[in-house]
């Protein structure tokens, strides 16, 4: 029920404020189907692509993202692994070094900690250590961050951790267009890419036009998207927090404040040019993320402003809205207040603008 309400809000927000061309003359596609079709396209296009992970084959995917793929492509291309993240992540990296293009699914990114040595030391650093002799064209994907009621060990956001490391590219899709385009671009990328999906977004449908369903539709890595243009304040977010930002923008609009909402899409590299350009227009900035505050995505954006002439475009300090600095609680009310909600973002925006 919550999801269908969010779905409606998202669609309303999308339709009213999206800059996607032909947004009104579009069909609905869930994020899950966007990912599924991306996998299908790329498996069909390149023989070297294969998917491995827990339950990806015969179960159709723990979250049904890989539904139908095993039936279509068989055991060779869609591989069910035992519950041995460190082993199968290493196997995936080795296969990439040897010339294949594996997609390694972590059932959630929390379990990637079991295998993080392979993501960083085996995948990210190898091209550099080998002076360009061995590249690692691998995709690590799976749901990231908070879900609903899954408690502390299953709710961590890994955007900051992975985006910290050179050698990796890190993307964080929000809607269907993002998910489909970024995953396709990630699979075609010659370097290791971490794709941080979000479980709560899988079932949300967005309007997509025919260019998105094209087999060669790609969303470039390292480029943010302006979801909603505005002139008074810039709100930067990624993944699920984009929805919170859009809801807040709708609220601010009622008060006559036009917020420009930027969907980062990529965390590494970070598209600071789009943010700088926006701030040159609005002179105010807040960031929204569901991850923890310390050394987070918002912290990085603030730091970059310190080091760029765009700093002088700011009329007020930058505020970050982050997940509360606690392990995720289980109880519903506590969990709700452990993440930034629309009122929090709206309050931050008003504070930064100096308005009541």
């Amino acid at each position, binding site marked *: 029920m919550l999801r269908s309400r969010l779905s409606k809000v998202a669609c309303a927000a999308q339709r009213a404020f999206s800059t996607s061309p032909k947004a009104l003359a579009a069909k609905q596609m869930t994020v899950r189907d966007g990912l599924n079709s991306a996998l299908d396209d790329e498996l069909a296009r390149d023989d070297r692509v*294969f998917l491995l992970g827990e339950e990806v084959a015969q179960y159709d995917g723990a979250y049904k993202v890989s539904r139908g793929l095993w039936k279509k492509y068989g055991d*060779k291309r869609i*591989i069910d*692994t*035992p519950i*041995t993240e*460190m*082993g*199968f*992540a*290493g*196997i*995936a*990296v*080795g*296969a*990439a*070094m*040897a*010339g*294949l293009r*594996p997609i390694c699914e972590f059932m959630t990114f929390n379990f990637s900690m079991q295998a993080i*040595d*392979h993501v960083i*030391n*085996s995948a990210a650093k*190898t*091209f*550099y*250590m*080998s*002076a*360009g*002799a*061995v*590249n690692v064209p691998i995709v690590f994907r799976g749901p990231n961050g908070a879900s609903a009621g899954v408690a502390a060990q299953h709710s961590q956001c890994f955007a900051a951790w992975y985006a910290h490391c*050179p*050698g990796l*590219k890190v993307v964080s899709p929000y809607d269907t267009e993002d998910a489909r385009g970024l995953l396709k671009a990630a699979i075609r*990328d*010659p*370097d290791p890419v971490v794709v941080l999906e979000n479980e709560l977004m899988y079932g949300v449908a967005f309007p997509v036009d025919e260019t998105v369903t094209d087999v060669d539709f790609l969303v*470039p*890595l*390292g*480029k943010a998207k302006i979801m909603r243009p505005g002139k008074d304040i810039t709100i930067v977010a990624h993944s699920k927090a984009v929805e919170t930002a859009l809801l807040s923008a709708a609220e601010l609009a009622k008060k006559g404040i036009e917020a420009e909402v930027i969907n980062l899409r*990529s965390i590494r*590299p970070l*598209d600071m040019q789009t943010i700088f350009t926006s701030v040159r227009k609005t002179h105010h900035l807040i960031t929204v993320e569901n991850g923890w505050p310390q050394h987070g995505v918002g912290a990085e954006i603030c730091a970059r402003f310190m*080091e760029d002439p765009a700093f002088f475009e700011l009329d007020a300090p930058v505020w970050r809205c982050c997940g509360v600095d606690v392990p995720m609680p289980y109880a519903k009310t506590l969990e709700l207040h452990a993440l930034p909600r629309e009122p929090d973002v709206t309050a931050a925006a008003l504070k930064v603008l100096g308005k009541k």
Partner: protein
Amino acid sequence: MYRNVLTVLSAQLQQHVNRALKRFVSCTAAQLPRPLAPGHEEASVVRQEPYVEEVRLVRIFLEFKLYKLELGPDTLVALTAQEAALYMKQLLAIRRLEAASAQLYKERLVRGFCHLSTGQEACAVGLCSALRKEDNLVAGYRIHGLAYLMGATAKGVLSELTGKASGCAQGKGGSMHMYAPNFYGGNGIVGAQVSLGAGIALANKYRGTGGVCFALYGDGAANQGQIFECFNMAKLWKLPIVFVCENNNYGMGTSAWRSSSNTDYYTRGDFLPGIWVDGQDVLAVRSATRFAVQYAQQRGPLVMELCTYRYAGHSMSDPGTSYRTREEVNQVRQRQDPINRFRKVCLDMSLLTEKQLRIIDQSVREEMEQAIQTARHDEELPLSHLANDVYSGNCAELKLRGVHGHNLEHAHSKATSIHN
């Protein structure tokens, strides 16, 4: 009584025949002794040089131990004069390469980690001699000899140690990160290379190359969880991989019997068959590897334990005497040195003469000298290359972040790919 006499006589005849067969088998394959050239001064002292195609049959000294295998590797192997010369050269080259590495380290031209494989040369030479062009190798960090045999030249190895641009990774990797065709490093994280090896084997199977991947690890790494994860997946998916434990009896300062509740590493694969090999015998290692290549291709993964010994410490920071006695090290040097043992086989079997050995030694010496000079005097990569090869393509950032700002140019100075 009549029958007894017959029995005794036939038994004696049988013994004669057996002895004759043994002599035949252990000496030569249908080669009659050649007459010496007239006026040949050294005729009585030095054996004549054998033809390169001359072959001898050699019996492997220490039997293989088999685990869950009915039949094991050949215990009677053929060795040609050409092979003898080649293996001798490679053994001596690795010995000298490691000596050069140690020397350069003492001169402080090599920094950080430097793990020598002195004493373990037969493992590298025997293993690599049995690899086909479609097979691959991945190993840990004691890899100078392996990298050399797989195609990184002596110059490539030594310059990489001294961090020069002529290093096999242009000085970006160092001692533990050397790559060569079909050799995927050079990996610093203990045990990680085994998972990578299973992935390479998966790629071989996926692409139908018929290649087998050899994933090397030590006795210290043998207890790593991910290795057991890979045993499971390799067996489940019938990956063409051979797990090779180079058991030199010490994981850094911890002996195998202090780290492992089961030191029979060739049995640790549980449901995977295993072979114990005398790692100080080049021909034993080669025979086992040949067997393993066939087995892995046809029947699936197996484990090979090469029982070996390192004379040096764990690394150049470790004298190697606090956890073992000097007597032990000396004993192995005297009785089980791989080079001495192979030299003896070659001389005893008349596959190499003393003179030929001297020539081989000399050529190895020269090769290493040249490489040492380059490693000493070559240039490092210029600073402008600091940010190269972080990404291989499709990087949205024109400049990478330096100390102060986004001001580092970065390019892709792609070295020759190691894929065949």
